[in-house]
C-alpha cells in the first residue's frame, strides 16, 4: 500500500492532470445524467420534457411556490430527494475513503465501524428524551463520534492497531448501539415515538424535504470540504506510522481531526436518512480502481461516484415498483459481494508480501 500510494502520486504529477480531468469529466457527466434521469423518473407520470421544463422554471424562479401537481412532484418531492441522496452518497463515500486512509485498512467504512449505528442511537435517544431539532442533530454527531472513539480504543492493543481488531471492534460497537436502539424501541410508546425510532435503523430517503436538505447539507458539505483540505495529510497518514512521523505529521492529532470530520459527515447523513450501509466501502474502492490511491484525486472521484451511485440506487428504490424497495436491500446486494472480494484480495496480497 505504501509503495502504491507514492507511485500513484508520482504518476499523477508526472503525467500532469490529463487523466484525472478526463475521469472527473466522465464522473461528473455520470452524476449529471443520473440526477436528470432520476428527476424524470418516478411513480407519478411526468414526461421527461415536462419534468425538465419544470426543473428549468424552478431554477429560474427559485422562490416561486409551485401550484400544479406535476410541478410539486418534481420540485418538492423529487428534487430534494435526489439532492439529499446525492449529498448523502457523496458524504458516505468520502467518509469511507478518509477512514480507510487513516486506518490504513481498505475494509473499514462508517457502518462497519459502528459510527452509523452510534449516530442512529443518538437520534433515537433524543426522540425518547423528547428532544427535537438542532439538539437532536447534536446528539447524532456526538454519539457517532463516541462510537468511532470506542472502536479506536478497543482496536488498539499494545499500541498497535490490526485490521482484524478494527473490524471486530467495529462489529462490537455497532452491535452494541444497534442493541441500544432496539432497547429504546422496546421501552418506547408503541404508537407515538416507536415509528420515529424505527426510522433510524432503516435507511431511506422517502421522507426527504427541502428542510431536511438544509439540515444535512451544511455538515455534509463542510465535512467533505474539510477532508479535501486534509488530502495531503491523508496521503501521509496512510503511510506507515514511523514514516509519517518522520515526515513531520503529528499523527495522533490529525487522526482525531479526520475522525471528527467523519463523525460530522455520517451524523448529518444518518440524521436525515437513517443508517445506509455499504456505500462507504464500495465507492472508495471503485474510485481507487479508477484513479489510484492518491487522496488528492481519490477524494473528488469518490464524491462524484458516491453521489451518482446513491442517486441511481434511490431512483430504483422509489420507482421500480408501486412499493418502495428498502434501500438497504439494494445496497447490500451490491455491497456484500464487493466486500467479500476485497476481503479475499486483501489477505491474498498480505500473504504474498
Amino acid at each position, binding site marked *: 500500500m505504501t509503495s502504491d500510494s507514492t507511485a500513484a502520486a508520482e504518476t499523477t504529477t508526472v503525467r500532469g492532470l490529463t487523466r484525472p480531468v478526463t475521469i472527473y469529466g466522465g464522473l461528473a457527466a455520470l452524476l449529471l445524467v443520473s440526477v436528470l434521469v432520476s428527476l424524470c423518473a*418516478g*411513480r*407519478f*407520470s411526468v414526461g421527461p420534457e415536462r419534468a425538465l421544463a419544470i426543473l428549468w422554471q424552478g431554477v429560474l424562479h427559485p422562490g416561486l411556490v*409551485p401550484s*400544479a*401537481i406535476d410541478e*410539486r*412532484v418534481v420540485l*418538492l*418531492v*423529487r428534487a430534494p430527494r435526489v439532492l439529499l441522496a446525492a449529498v448523502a452518497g457523496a458524504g458516505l463515500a468520502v467518509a469511507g475513503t478518509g477512514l480507510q486512509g487513516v486506518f490504513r485498512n481498505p475494509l473499514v467504512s462508517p457502518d462497519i465501524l459502528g459510527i452509523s449505528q452510534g449516530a442512529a442511537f443518538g437520534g433515537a435517544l433524543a426522540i425518547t428524551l423528547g428532544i427535537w431539532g438542532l439538539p437532536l442533530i447534536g446528539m447524532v454527531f456526538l454519539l457517532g463520534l463516541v462510537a468511532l472513539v470506542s472502536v479506536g480504543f478497543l482496536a488498539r492493543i499494545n499500541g498497535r492497531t490490526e485490521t482484524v481488531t478494527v473490524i471486530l471492534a467495529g462489529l462490537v460497537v455497532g452491535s452494541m448501539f444497534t442493541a441500544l436502539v432496539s432497547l429504546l424501541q422496546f421501552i418506547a410508546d*408503541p*404508537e*407515538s415515538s416507536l*415509528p*420515529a425510532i*424505527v*426510522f433510524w435503523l432503516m435507511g*431511506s430517503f*422517502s421522507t426527504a424535504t427541502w428542510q431536511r436538505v438544509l439540515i444535512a447539507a451544511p455538515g455534509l458539505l463542510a465535512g467533505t470540504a474539510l477532508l479535501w483540505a486534509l488530502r495531503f495529510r491523508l496521503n501521509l497518514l496512510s503511510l506507515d506510522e514511523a514514516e509519517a512521523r518522520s515526515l513531520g505529521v503529528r499523527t495522533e492529532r490529525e487522526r482525531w481531526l479526520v475522525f471528527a470530520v467523519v463523525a460530522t459527515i455520517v451524523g448529518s447523513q444518518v440524521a436525515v436518512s437513517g443508517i445506509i450501509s455499504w456505500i462507504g466501502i464500495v465507492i472508495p474502492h471503485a474510485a481507487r480502481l479508477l484513479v489510484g490511491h492518491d487522496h488528492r484525486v481519490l477524494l473528488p472521484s469518490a464524491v462524484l461516484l458516491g453521489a451518482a451511485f446513491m442517486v441511481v440506487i434511490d431512483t430504483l428504490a*422509489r420507482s421500480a415498483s*408501486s*412499493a*418502495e424497495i*428498502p434501500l438497504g436491500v439494494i445496497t447490500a446486494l451490491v455491497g456484500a459481494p464487493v466486500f467479500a472480494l476485497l476481503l479475499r484480495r486483501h489477505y491474498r496480497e498480505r500473504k504474498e508480501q
Partner: protein
Amino acid sequence: MGGRGMVRRVVSGCAVALLMAGGAGAQQIDIKDQAGRDVKLDGPARRVVTIPMPMASGVIALDGGTGRLVGMNPLSLTAIREGILGKIFPAAAKITDSVTGTNFMPNVEALAAANPDLVIQWGGRGNDIVDPITNAGLNALLIQYGTEELTRQYMTMVATAIGRPERIGPLVEWRDRVEKEIETKTAKLPASDRPSVLYLGNALSSITASGDKGNYNAFYIDMVGARNASADLSGTVTINKEQIAQWNPDFILLNAFEPQLDVSWVYNDPILSLTKAAQNHRVYKVPLGGYRWDPPNQESPLSWMWLADLVHPELFDFDLRAEMKSAYETLYNYQLSDADIDGILWMDKQGSAAGYDRFKAK
C-alpha cells in the same frame, strides 16, 4: 338494529359444536378453531386473555362486560383508553397488557400469572406465537384475520367458549342484514360509478397501503360500491406520496391506529392536498368506537354504514347516529350521548368534510 325483531340464526359453515356433558349439568365445550385444532373446555371460560388486537373489545361486547377479560394486547388497551370503551367500562383500563408484545409474542410468565382458562391468539402466523401458550399448558383458541366469513365464525366460537352463545345470534344477523342491504344497492354498479378509495394503514413514519387479497378494508370498500385504489399492490407495503398522486384517489381513509394522525396530515401536504380526495374534502380518519373501525370487529356494520353514506350519499341514507345508539345499547348496554358520538366520528377534526353534515347531531 334495536332490540326488536332479531332473529337468532345458526351460521352456516361454522364449525362450532356444543356438547352437553352428563352429571351435574357441567357443560363441556368443544370447539374446532380456525387452525383446525380441537379446543376443549370444561365449562364456559371465565378468565380470557386476548392477543389479537380487536378481540379484547370483542370479548367485552360478546360478554356484555369486562368480567372475563384478564389480559390483552397493549394496542387493545390503548384503543380502550383513547376510545369510548374506557368510559363505558372504566375497569377495562386496568386490565393487564403485559401478556403479549404488540408483535403477538406471548409473555409466558405474565400469561401464567393472569391464570387464564382460554387464550385467544392469531392463527396462520406461524407456531412461534402459539407454542409458548400450549407449552405452558394453557388452552389456545386460534382465529384468522381476513374475511367477513372468518370474522363471524370466530366471533361465534368465542361467544360459545365464554358461555354466551345467546349473544352472538343477533350480532351475526345484524352483520348479515346490513351487508345484504348495502350489497343490493351496489352489486350492479358499473365500474365507472365506483369511486376509488385509498386506505392508509400507516401514514406518519412510513406510508403503507394494501392490495385486495386478504384485506378486510378492501372487502368493505368494494361492498359500499367503491374500488380499492391500491388494488395493484400485493400484500401490505410501503408506498410514497408520488404513488398516491399517481393513483389520485377520490377518497382517502386514514387509519385509527395512529393517535397523532388526522386529516390535516393530508391537507397540509403539498402533494396529497392536490389529490381529488383532498380537493373535494373527501379525506376521513376512520372512527374509533368500541374498537378502531378499520379491522373487523363487533361494530363493523357501523363502519360499513359510515363509509356507504360517505361514498354513495345518493344511494344510502343510514341514520348513523341512531344506528350507533342502538348498537351500543345491544353491545355494551350503554346509552351513547351526542358528545360521545361526536368524539367517535372525530367531528371536531373532520366535521367540515364532504358528506359529514348528515352525521351531525340534529
